[in-house]
């Protein structure tokens, strides 16, 4: 019988040819999106190391001792292999692998996009209009009491920063978190889609309080009497010993503040920064501003400018 069918050899060759593989893929429902949504979501989570056993990230305790912080890149080859491995579960012949190969690039492409949406999807948040095309995953892993003791600890990463005239760090370009998760009471994992130059750990701003640093000193703040002196900002972002005013206590060891002496110490520094008001004295309200203790912040910088000293924790 004459048949309108390709011969066996032709058939195989046709199946293996690129266009046919494409058609084959089309016939397997890959037409609408490269991946079915659930699979795409799962694979992009996997690319964000969701589900990866922790011991495969930190095989030994020595690599993440107590009170340590590790910054890292995520090697895209490694995640790519991870995805490949996940997809290869169903690959039982060269036909299957050819099929996967033919779509693999597109899979990678769409994963790079959907990785950025995982967190928003989890939060049922609005999806962004544009996605980061130059994705390079990096992150930090912190094992510290900071994680267990400050449940509301904020970690923010920025693409860049500048130092303003008051020596304050001015962050530029906040980087969206791809993943931020506490993996244990004292272990925190954060992943970012770009390489940050500035990471700031912020104590949660939970309320207004009066207070001083544990060494009993404080850096005075501007009170808004002059232009370029916004209320509440420290007179300098990089205080030297002479920029710190001591909160003087009365004698008797009862920890009672010696208001006058303290006031004098403050005025001394404030005057040096030309921050006093027209009255020339520190009003009770001004005094109150000076004694406000704001939340603390620790910045980690990797830019060329390393001032202020990154080892110091500051209020902010």
């Amino acid at each position, binding site marked *: 019988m004459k048949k309108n069918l390709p011969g066996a*050899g032709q058939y195989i060759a046709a199946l293996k040819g690129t266009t046919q593989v494409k058609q084959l893929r089309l016939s397997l429902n890959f037409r609408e999106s490269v991946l079915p949504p659930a699979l795409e979501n799962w694979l992009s989570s996997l690319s964000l190391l969701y589900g990866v056993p922790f*011991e495969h990230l930190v095989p030994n305790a020595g690599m993440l001792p107590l009170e340590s912080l590790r910054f890292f890149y995520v090697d895209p080859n490694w995640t790519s292999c991870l995805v490949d491995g996940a997809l290869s579960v169903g690959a039982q*012949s060269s*036909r299957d*692998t050819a099929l996967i190969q033919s779509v693999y690039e597109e899979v990678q492409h769409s994963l790079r996009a959907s990785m950025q949406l995982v967190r928003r999807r989890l939060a049922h948040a609005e999806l962004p209009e544009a996605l980061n095309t130059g994705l390079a995953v990096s992150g930090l892993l912190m*094992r510290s009491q900071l994680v267990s003791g400050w449940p509301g600890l904020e970690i923010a990463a920025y693409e860049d920063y500048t130092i303003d005239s008051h020596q304050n760090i001015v962050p530029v370009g906040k980087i969206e978190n791809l993943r931020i998760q506490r993996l244990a009471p004292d272990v925190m994992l954060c992943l970012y889609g770009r390489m940050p130059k500035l990471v700031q750990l912020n104590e949660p701003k939970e309320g207004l309080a009066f207070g001083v640093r544990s060494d009993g000193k404080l850096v005075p703040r501007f009170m808004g009497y002059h232009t370029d002196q916004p209320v509440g900002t420290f007179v300098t972002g990089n205080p030297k010993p002479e920029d710190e005013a001591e909160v003087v206590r009365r004698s008797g060891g009862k920890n009672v503040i010696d208001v006058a002496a303290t006031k004098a110490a403050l005025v001394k520094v404030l005057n040096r920064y030309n921050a006093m008001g027209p009255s020339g004295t520190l009003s009770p309200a001004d005094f109150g501003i000076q004694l406000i203790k704001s939340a603390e912040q620790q910045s980690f910088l990797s830019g060329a400018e390393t001032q202020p000293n990154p080892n110091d924790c500051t209020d902010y």
Partner: protein
Amino acid sequence: MAKAAKNTADPLLWNGPSLLVPVDVEALVVSKLSLNYPWAYNRMKYNNAGKFENVRPSMFQDADRPGVGITLHWALPDGITHGRQEGEQIRYPYAPNRWLIIRYYEGKSKSWILQSDYLDPKDGANLFLKPDAATPTVTRIGKVWPAAQWPGEAGVSQQQFLMALGPGNPAFAAYTANINNVFSFYDDMSDIVDKAVPVTYTVMGWYGNAADDPLNNFTTLDEWLALMDSLLWTVGDNNDLQKAVNDWLAWAKANNITVNPDQARDLYPSRTLCQGMVYKVNWLGQNGVPQSGVPQYDPSMPAEKQPRIAVANTAIDALAALVAFELDIEGQNGEAAAELLEAFNYNLLTKYQEQGGQYQLYREIFKAWFGNHDAEYYYYIDDKDKPEDPFIKPERLADLVSLNRKAAERDLNLHLMQSAQSDLYGNWWKTGKSGTYWGKPPAGISAAEWKVIQDNLKNAIPGNKQLVSDLQDANRKLDTEIAALIEKVKEGLPSTEELKENMGNRYHQANDPVVLIYGAHRAYRHGEDGRFDDDDHLFTRFTGQTITGLQVMLPNQPVQPVMSDNVTLPPVSLPAYGLVPKETNSICIDNYFFDTSNAPAIAQAACNLLKIPYDAAYANNVAAQQTAAWNADIYNIDRQLVTDASGFIGTIPSKVAVQLWAAPWAPLYMAWEINWFPSYDEPSKALEKWQFDAEALEYVWDERYNVTGNSVTISGSSLITPNSAFVMQAQLEKYFEDTGKFPDLREFLNTVSQWDFLTQSMSGLNELLLALNPDQLNQAPADVNSLVGDMTQLSPVPDMSVKNYPVRAGHFQLNKLWVVDDFGQVFDPISAVGQQPAGYKPVVGTGMVTPNNPNLVQLPPRVTQNARFEFNFLSGDGKTNDSGQINQMTDPICGWLLPNHLDKGLSLYTPDGHLLGELILTGTFSRMQLRWDNAPGKNVPVGAPLEEVIPNPYLRSFVANLLAREDSAAAFGSLLSIIDETLWTVEPLGGRNNELISVFIGRPLALVRSAMNYNLMGAPVYSQNWKDSTLKVTGGYEDIAFPVQTGCLQDPQDGTIGYFLEDFLTFNSILADKIDKTSGYITNEPVALSFKEPAKEVFLLVDPRGDVNVIPGILPVQLNVLPGTLVENAMSNMNVTFRTGPLITDPDQLSMPLPSEMSGKWSWIQHTGVTTWEELTTIAQANEKARIGVGYELKDGWLKLSNALNDSK
């Protein structure tokens, strides 16, 4: 009509009504000039019966002609021509044996009565065989009486034999040449031989003996209704029936007949009265111009209107080829249309558009090229609960197996007995035939040889007889044993279980080629007389429902009824009252009012009654009324409305009963003659000029050869069966309507061709190729006749010049093709378009096209007799050789192979799914080695012999043979790549409910034990010529090794990877040439089998979700599929181990991520020493939760998944 009412003594005047059954009457007008046409007016040569000569005449002899005059023929109602199955036999009803013919002409009439059952060797009208004679005895049948001289039943004898069938002639009642004065009447027109006069004939038929009447046998209304239904007759719905009874009662009253209303037989007809008429027969005198109904063509007509012949394997193939041809002429896509028709016919319309559907369609088409013949029944126990683990008690199973063996043996014996009966009959026939030579030997045989032949024949007969009776005895014994075993197996069967039987693999015989003739103008005379009514039943009337007058509607005049009393009926000369049915007069009146020749007289009578002057134009008004009832469109309207509208008083009959004359044409026979060019001289070389091409499913002609050699002329004729071969016509119309697709095809079928297709197979060709002749009637003496059974239909053709062709392989050219009708008229579609057979190019259907020669039709190799290809699964453990048919519990699986594509390994499992070990490649790339690793966790010493590890002998043989090879690594690599290559074409569609697991474990392939063999039905056929008598010379065709391809890449459902033969030395794959074959382990040797060989064991490697196609080429594709439960069970047991590592884990608590979607049990197997193992059954779910450990280790081992399928259900 004054005779006393009650007259039971006279069989024709009884107290009940008759059923008036319409018959289709046609009249052939033959003038002297008509005799110049070709005629196939052939008389049966019954005087050759019993003389070893042909009784059936050749259709092409063109010798006899019908007489000049008018030949009248009526088609018996289908209810009388159709047989009914009664037990083993088909019984045919008797046919009416008395016929009254009245010819009306010039206001006069002439009448005759036919005594159709008249038998007399001296003065009967036609040669016939004495119905009750022990040996064929010639007599003559049929007699005509001038009606007035008819002596009545008392004066003649009534014979009980006349049926629609004649001796050796199924078309007896349809073909006029042998039934003059029986079911046909030749009117020589001697009284008006030179006049041109329109004439009208009335025909009435009845049974001389009430007991022969098919309506006779009832006592209640229900019985009567059942009789009517079985005869395909109706009077309409219940209201119509009531009206018919009322009409009859009124008639009876008017005719002084007393009716007992409590007697069903007095109310409902127990007598059949056939009646029909043909009016305005255009008799032009003996020298008139010829009037022929044979289709006429002119070569200048448009191509698509010209008649054409298509030859194909099936009717649908022929139609498809014709359609493709005709549409291609018009520049349309004929091939697509042809494929659509085929898909429609095989109900694959949706399927063939899917992937692989086309292959499925081709497989179906190919299958339809073969006829089926019943095979043995086998028995099995069916459990309604469909348990997953069917169980049959061992004792019962043993009985079942024995039952099936005996049933198979009985069938084998039966076919052998039929062969032995043929031998016996053939030898008896030859002995008898040799006696007709009177000592002078036939051509080509010397006197000495002749003596030996005759002696051998005589001596062979006792042995033949003995063999037949031995086989009969054996089967009688088997019958008893089988019946006993059936009882035994049934005994104590649980209530949910039932012993059922099913037919085994049927025998197949290639179809005789089918010829389709387009433009031969098919007719509806035979077998379709119910076509004017809804449910294919023929509308009949009761006595008293005939037309008694006409409500004449003349322009501007009131309606004027004209009754029979108002007109002068032509006098009819009839025998004495009581010798013809009491309805005769009423039917004459009825026919008078339908005959438009009487229109002027009826109009005249109306004018007289209306007292207005006659106008010649009034005759046209009346004639229009008379024919209004036959207007085709009104057939779906209520009959009474039609009657009222047309003005007839009474009930109008089915249109069948009233025919306006036209020159008749009703195709009845297709006669053919071919020049046969066999492709071989010696049967053993039948395949020499052919190449097996499994992708074409069969053989293709080797184009290095030309079709040459001497041809053999073979001829035959087939009765054209009336039923349309194309049942899909209505469906197709709906498809066109719904989709609007293929407008050209629709146009061609419905408008251009109007479905004017006659299809008929060239039946008998296969037998003629075996040198067997169907045209004789001989009867052996009782001692032989009692043994030969039905094997007397075919007699040998012993001439030395005639060969037999046990393998049908070659080409033929159509030499003659005639369509012959009831009257012997001939339509020749080749000469009708002005062509000669030698150059004629028929349209040739798929599979029959001869490369480079459109004049020839190709018949690729087939076994001419019935044969089958058996492909059965055998028990995989090798302990028995019972097939799955003999023993339903047969598990053909030898083991499972699970290729690991990524790691280049092959895991082996027991049939029930337990891991045995793994074949794996080790070493460096430059020097790979194949290694057998026992299953992890098995404490088997390293290097333990395979016997201890792999219990299945076949699976072991596979592993051992592979390991034993010097190039085992290369061979293994080839095996893996051929598996991988083949899996490209296997679509994982077979949706067994293990898809989830198969994602994890891959696609386990089953190693399946099967057996293949060819069987002939009965013994091999042999040469029939004189010299080979009793020697059974087969020519060696049973030794030909026919190749068989296993697996088919074009079918995505096919799961065949390849196969091993018993030696397991090489692996065979269709794709062998696609890979590097240097190792020699992969070959492509088709299984080759001859009919003589016993079954060959073949070990298939298959994807259990797929089918196995086995393509024998000479027979239809065999499809087999693994029993689902076996596969499911193994899959559910299957433990899969994944070589895993390195895994970073806490040594005290192994943990790793495990799939959440997957149920089943996971465990971890690891070496604790060289041959010692431990299996950790608890694996902690590892996840991203931070666990900071100090003593984590890297581990290598095997992750094992067990019981996955069971738990996931």
